[in-house]
């Protein structure tokens, strides 16, 4: 298959990339790094940009830095494979190591970057299809393709007919993990670099997914030092145990004291809403309490209230909602009863 025609630029510095983005016509430039999301989307003709900006050559955006005071800084071009195998990530941030190891398969992780994984296009059964397939249907709200021969004369959302909102789901694995670690994203733009909480980066709208302007570039992810050593785990629902995008994902982190009392907790979910989301009640419900089946079930139910799975994928909303509950229960049990690697080493040392 042939990709739509475009010009390609390969900037070597962030400043050069920003200049290219600023000079491009609005909405006419697409950024590519690993290519595992953008190229298939171009194949499907989901976009037709005039310009593709390949940022892989920007050496300053590579690599992981860790200091017990500053926390973890991950350059946007760090591959998912590099993150998955980094000893500091495995030891201090196990939820992130598990989540990135669950992305697609090893070859995709050799290409895909953390920046790209956080900026993934939202996905929907009715959107991620070939041009031919979509044209036959007349397109959808997110990408109308008016066609006089289509069964429907006007463009509708096939997930929620009559609605004006796009429910395409945010289908990444690393973001829920990073949300449970209170991560921030660093964004470079015409007015310099700013840091924003990751939770404010997602707009929960299938058509307008992230708070990143057309002249901005995501340059790094920061995980604060206070999140290091937290117990954590990630659970992912998918059809095959490799390659697939998540149909539902649950990340949990927790701090538990010697008496078994929860001192901090976060629960985040993905692939069931147009954004990865923290479960707002989880912290209040868990902090200061000891583990009990009733409490764990209560948090699991709160998770299913945050998740709004609809018919955006091949499995049913009912199944995905139920698996949110099951995964939350299992993840909480794992965190509560198993000290993390860093914690274990610390305790055995005193």
């Amino acid at each position, binding site marked *: 298959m042939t*990709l*739509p025609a475009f010009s*390609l630029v390969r900037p070597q510095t962030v400043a050069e990339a920003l200049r290219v983005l600023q000079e491009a016509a609005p909405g006419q430039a697409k950024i590519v790094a690993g*290519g*595992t999301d953008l190229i298939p989307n171009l194949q499907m003709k989901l976009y037709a940009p005039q310009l593709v900006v390949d940022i892989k050559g920007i050496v300053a955006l590579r690599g992981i830095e860790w200091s017990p005071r500053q926390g973890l800084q991950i350059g946007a071009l760090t591959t998912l494979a590099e993150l998955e195998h980094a000893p500091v990530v495995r030891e201090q941030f196990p939820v992130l190591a598990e989540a990135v190891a669950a992305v697609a398969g*090893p070859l*995709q992780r*050799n*290409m895909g970057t953390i920046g790209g994984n956080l900026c993934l296009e939202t996905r929907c059964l009715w959107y991620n299809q070939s041009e031919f397939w979509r044209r036959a249907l007349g397109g959808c709200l997110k990408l109308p393709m008016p066609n006089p021969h289509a069964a429907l004369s006007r463009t509708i959302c096939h997930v929620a007919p009559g609605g004006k909102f796009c429910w395409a789901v945010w289908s990444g694995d690393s973001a829920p993990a990073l949300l449970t670690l209170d991560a921030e994203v660093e964004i470079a733009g015409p007015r310099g670099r700013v840091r924003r909480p990751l939770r404010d980066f997602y707009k929960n709208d299938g058509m307008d997914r992230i708070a990143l302007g057309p002249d901005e570039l995501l340059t790094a992810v920061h995980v604060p030092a206070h999140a290091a050593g937290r117990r954590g785990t990630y659970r992912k629902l998918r059809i095959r145990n490799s390659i697939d995008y998540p149909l539902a994902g649950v990340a949990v982190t927790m701090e538990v004291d010697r008496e078994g009392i929860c001192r901090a907790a976060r629960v985040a979910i993905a692939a069931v809403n147009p954004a990865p989301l923290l479960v707002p009640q989880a912290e209040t419900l868990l902090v200061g309490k000891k583990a009990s089946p009733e409490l764990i079930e209560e948090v699991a139910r709160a998770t299913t209230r945050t998740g709004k799975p609809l018919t955006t994928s091949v499995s049913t909303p009912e199944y995905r909602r139920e698996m949110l509950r099951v995964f939350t229960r299992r993840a909480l049990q794992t965190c509560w009863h198993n000290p993390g690697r860093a914690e274990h080493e610390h305790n055995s040392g005193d």
Partner: protein
Amino acid sequence: MEKILLQLRVNGETRQVAVPPNKLLLDVLREDLGLTGSKRGCDDSSCGCCAVLIDGTPMLSCVALAASYVGAEILTVEGLAPPGELHPVQEGFAVSGGAQCGYCTPGFLITTKALLDRNPHPTLEEIREALSSNLCRCTGYMQIYESVRLALERWAQAPRAAGARPSAAEGRD
């Protein structure tokens, strides 16, 4: 569309091609360089048939723009061993029936070579994990895992010969 001139390093040789900037590495390999070993399967990065080594790391050439890999060392299945010879990984697959229809085989050979270069003594679990981006629709994978194990044995029996044997990449320079 206007073409651009690219110099690519493929199987140890510098190859010059004039291609449009939207041309995929897989298509440049197959159409411009005549290296049809790498296969187009899913065309959207979910089957592993198009795997090639880029600076020693297995990647999917169906989601790689050729122009993005100027300056990288690209190794395709054709470069695993000199013409007329077999790499131990190829021997393993040939003897143990790791190829049935053969379409996915180049991708499996490339991914297996990368695994053995990195980890010469993988466990079955490590083999399964390393090959989990490659789909085979014929064998059910058992013969493939057996092929990898046989390749491991042959690799281990003649480590010096296998290591010292010039790959096509080194041999042509």
